[in-house]
């Protein structure tokens, strides 16, 4: 697992992908910080991270699209699978590499928090930490979705588009079902609590509000775990395929 993680990290920072990802994120993030916090004079970390969350939602596919699809396309998965490593090792190693880049990039945004702290004394380290934790957990789910999508196809582009689609769909579902103007037919009304329970985003709002709950952490971790489990199954199924 370590070897796979290390190779992916090298790949991110020896090729342009890592820099492109960080570059886009920090550029758009900077603009958002300026518009959302500086211009609107809102010294709130929740606003900042809420905005940055959208950028990750859209850019994480750049990081994850290659992970498994490219191995299959170039048949380098033959090396990995016929080595003594298990499929779990491979999938986890790749997931952790992408997650590491996300965490590193997120760390850079602490600069914004430092800037905010010059203009207000209403920043509480506990609340900020809680907010960042929720933010990272949510992004971890994006990465896990990306890994699964990358396992499903041999094409990087398909993997990226699929990941993007799923991320956006999850986001839309959440806002549709949480809006009061949207009414479900009666026989479907049971869906509302179910969907809002499953929603990735409603749970993030609780972190943003400074409420740290073990259940929410567990939810994000198991959501990612499920995605990775499915990715492993997909990789395994390919080997058994008789089609």
């Amino acid at each position, binding site marked *: 697992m*370590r*070897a*796979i993680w*290390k*190779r992916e990290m*090298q*790949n991110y920072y*020896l*090729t342009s992908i890592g820099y492109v990802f960080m570059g886009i994120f920090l550029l758009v993030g900077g603009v958002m910080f300026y518009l959302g916090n500086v211009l609107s004079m809102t010294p709130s970390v929740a606003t900042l991270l809420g905005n940055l969350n959208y950028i990750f939602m859209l850019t994480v596919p750049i990081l994850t699209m290659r992970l498994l699809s490219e191995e299959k396309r*170039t*048949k*380098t*998965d*033959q*090396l*990995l*699978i*016929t*080595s*003594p*490593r*298990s499929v779990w090792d491979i999938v986890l190693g790749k997931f952790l590499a992408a997650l590491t880049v996300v965490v590193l990039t997120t760390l850079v945004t602490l600069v914004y928090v430092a800037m905010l702290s010059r203009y207000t004394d209403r920043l509480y380290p506990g609340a900020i930490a809680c907010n960042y934790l929720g933010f990272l957990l949510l992004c971890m789910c994006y990465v896990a979705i990306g890994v699964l999508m990358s396992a499903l196809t041999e094409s990087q582009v398909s993997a990226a588009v699929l990941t993007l689609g799923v991320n956006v769909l999850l986001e839309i579902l959440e806002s549709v079902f949480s809006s009061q103007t949207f009414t479900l037919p009666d026989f479907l009304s049971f869906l509302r609590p179910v969907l809002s329970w499953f929603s990735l985003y409603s749970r993030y709002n609780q972190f943003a509000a400074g409420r740290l709950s073990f259940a929410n952490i567990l939810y994000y971790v198991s959501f990612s775990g499920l995605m990775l489990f499915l990715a492993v199954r997909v990789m395994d199924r390919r*080997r*058994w*395929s*008789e*089609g």
Partner: protein
Amino acid sequence: MIEIQHLTKRYGNKLAVSDASFTIQKGEILGFLGRNGAGKSTTMNIITGYISASGGTVKLDGYDILEDPREVKKRIGYLPEQPPLYVDMTVNEYLKFVCAIKDVKKSRIRGHLDDITDLVGLGEVRKRLIRNLSKGYRQRVGMAQALVGNPEVVILDEPTVGLDPKQILEVRRMIRQLGEDHTIVLSSHILPEVADVCDRLVIIHQGKIVAEDTLENLTHSEEDSRRIRMRIAGGNDEIRAALERVPGVKRVDGLGSREKDTFDYILHADGTADIRRGVFAAMAGKGFPVLIQRPMDLDLEDVFLQLTRESGEEA
């Protein structure tokens, strides 16, 4: 060493491999021969654990590939048909990565890689990006990758495809050298290649194993008569008459004249009689110089075509 029993792989309605059983013995160089699409790569992919069989078992020293994949994979080095290379890494980086996933101890990596790169002749390109290497060098990197961790069994899927004649000779030399302390399975559709380096042959046709034997047994069992190709200087009619009188000669086929004042023949011997000395003595007695005398019995091509035709040619 490796026992393959009743191996079957189904793709839709087609059986890529059907009820294949054979064994790979410790220390041998086994040639795995078949035409394109005969099921060679599928079989090798199953043995190495890349894909799973629809039925049957593969056991290496008693470890089953499905039940103890780790134990089996630790003992096998595999060079697939298309070498699994990360082209954006240098040769060194790539091989170090392979060392890491194959559990080579950190302290041993440097020496181990020096040995391997010496053996396959990669010394001077170790710092170059794999992307920029020629096909021949890429194949060597692929070989090096298969040797990392010093596995007992090395499986090579068509290692000489796409190489130039000089590189092919080098790969063969490498395989012979490796064969001294490894068990090697070598797949190919090129007959001289396996005839040249392999101790034993397994021939696969349309997913079925049609023969498993040593080269000598394969070529001899098929031989109804031994044949000798000759070129003799002199007059055609006199030579022919003299040849037909040599004891043990069943038939003389004339091939006409290929060189001034000489004639070419194919002699068919009766049964397994060795007629070479008799022919020489007879020609010497008549004063006809023998310019070429070459046995033709080592004709794997015939064996192969015959075996692959027997088991039902469709189309």
